[in-house]
């Protein structure tokens, strides 16, 4: 009689525990759905729309801005680039490079040498080298970050619902015989100053994207200046 009661107690306990597990799992699943489902890596090329600028100086497409030390992302002050082709010199327009744009899952390393004789950056796979204060800057992504010498992962961008997130720590800019990491987070995974990770939107039906990240320069003549990278275009998944 006593044994039977004990067995019943064990069975009841096991049933209660199972129910609790199922309830927890269901609650977790509904939470994930509320957040837009599971995030998915977008592997391929984020092909860039060239930056353009209307008469009022409002830019669309892909462009770059640089915030001066002590400024804010929202209010600047922005470093005017007199070499910009936009009437609004705060905006430096970007044109797609030989790869069409920014690749995820693979590096787009800079050439060797990375500079010409006068210090212009030569990397041209992501966007074409672009004039800035009389010298071209060039972007690349490298397994070993040229500025810090640290190993960095290839660019990753994920989508969850219609929202993009990602890691651009491998993004590097060559300018005036100097290298500047322009990723977020930084190679040491920090987010100094105004640095903000990649955010953006993605339309699965058209594969159109609009993304932005912010990276404060650490070290060198432009220490504490902050680059805002705004890219627009269409995502082209890699084959296979």
């Amino acid at each position, binding site marked *: 009689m006593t044994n039977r009661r004990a067995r019943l107690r064990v069975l009841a306990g096991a049933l209660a525990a199972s129910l609790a597990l199922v309830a927890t799992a269901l609650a977790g699943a509904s939470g994930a759905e509320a957040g837009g489902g599971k995030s998915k890596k977008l592997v391929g090329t984020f092909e860039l729309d060239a930056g353009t600028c209307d008469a009022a100086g409002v830019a669309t497409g892909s462009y770059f801005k640089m915030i*001066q*030390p*002590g400024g804010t992302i929202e209010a600047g002050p922005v*470093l*005017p*680039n*007199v*070499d910009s082709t936009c009437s609004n010199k705060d905006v430096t327009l970007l044109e797609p490079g030989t790869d069409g744009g920014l690749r995820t899952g693979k590096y787009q390393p800079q050439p060797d040498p990375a*500079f010409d004789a*006068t*210090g*212009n950056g030569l990397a041209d796979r992501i966007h074409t080298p672009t004039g800035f*204060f*009389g*010298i071209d800057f060039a972007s690349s992504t490298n397994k070993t970050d040229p500025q810090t010498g640290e190993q960095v992962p290839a660019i990753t961008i994920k989508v969850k619902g219609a929202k993009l997130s990602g890691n651009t720590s491998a993004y590097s800019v060559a300018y*005036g*015989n*100097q290298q500047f990491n322009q990723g977020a987070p930084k190679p040491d995974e920090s987010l100094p100053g105004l640095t903000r990770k990649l955010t953006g939107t993605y339309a699965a039906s058209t594969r159109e994207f609009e993304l932005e990240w912010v990276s404060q320069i650490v*070290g*060198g*003549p*432009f*220490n*504490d*200046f902050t680059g805002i990278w705004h890219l627009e275009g269409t995502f082209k998944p890699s084959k296979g």
Partner: protein
Amino acid sequence: MRRAPLVCALALGLGLVAVPFIFGMFDRAPRGAVMLDEFRPFMTDETITTFDGYLAEMDAAEAEAQGDLRAFLAESGVVPDAGFDQEFPLVASFSEEWPAIDEDMSGLLADIGDNVENYEAVDALPPFTLFPWFFVAPGLLIAGVAGFALVRRSTGSAARWALVGLGVGLIAAPAVFQMFTRAPKGGEMIDRFRPIMERDRVQRIQGYFVTIGAAEGTLRAQALPLAQEQGGLSEADLDERFPAIRELNRDWQTIVADDTGFAAMIGAMSDNVDNYEAVDALPPFSLFPWFFVIPGVLLAGVGLISRRPTPALATVPATPARTLEPSIPQRSTR
């Protein structure tokens, strides 16, 4: 050997070992080494002269922009004199700020130029990264010899002379490395760089670079093309009429991108603010030779007085003289 001097020698040795830890030298000295390395390209009279030349170019270009160029654009009906600042606001900002920039940058270059000799003196010292070991290595040797003599209750003179030798070595080291002349020069350099190597000052200089660059770009990409297209000037005319602006335009890439250019120097300054602070937190450079001489003198002195005195004959207690008695054979009573 006497124990008290040996204990003093042991304490001296351990004290020397402790010096780098007390002053954080293992962290600070390598930072000094990095700073010296990164400043090396700029700490030459030739580089300072080149930079002075760039300032003169900028000064001439500013005067020409507000003089000949402004007048030409007005006379040609391209940009009225009253509208020049509005048409080229970045040139106007440059002109407004230039006197202060020129004064500050000239002062900076003068300070750097005045310290080239001091820098060379410091750079000729043994590598900064070795500094902590200059204390630790002899400290361990001294402590080792003294400790050994104490433990073994050594009575020999080898340990004593080893301590004297180490003391003399410590006294001689600053002279060998010419620390008495070089270290104070290093101290002077650190003092003179104090107002330069501040984050605010470096950021202000970064700001100058932006102001100058924006004006250079405006003159190159906007003002001169306007003068050329609407004023009917050829490339040769531009060279002839506006030689100072054209020279600045030609040299701008070098100023920005050269390994020993202005931008590189600003980068070196910015990257070394923290390193400078670390070096500045070390004890005054002029004291460094005495960190060796004083313990050296003490150690040599300790070594010399540590000899256990030899017992003197006069102090040997006298034993009563025994009277020699003739040995008389004892006759057996048996």
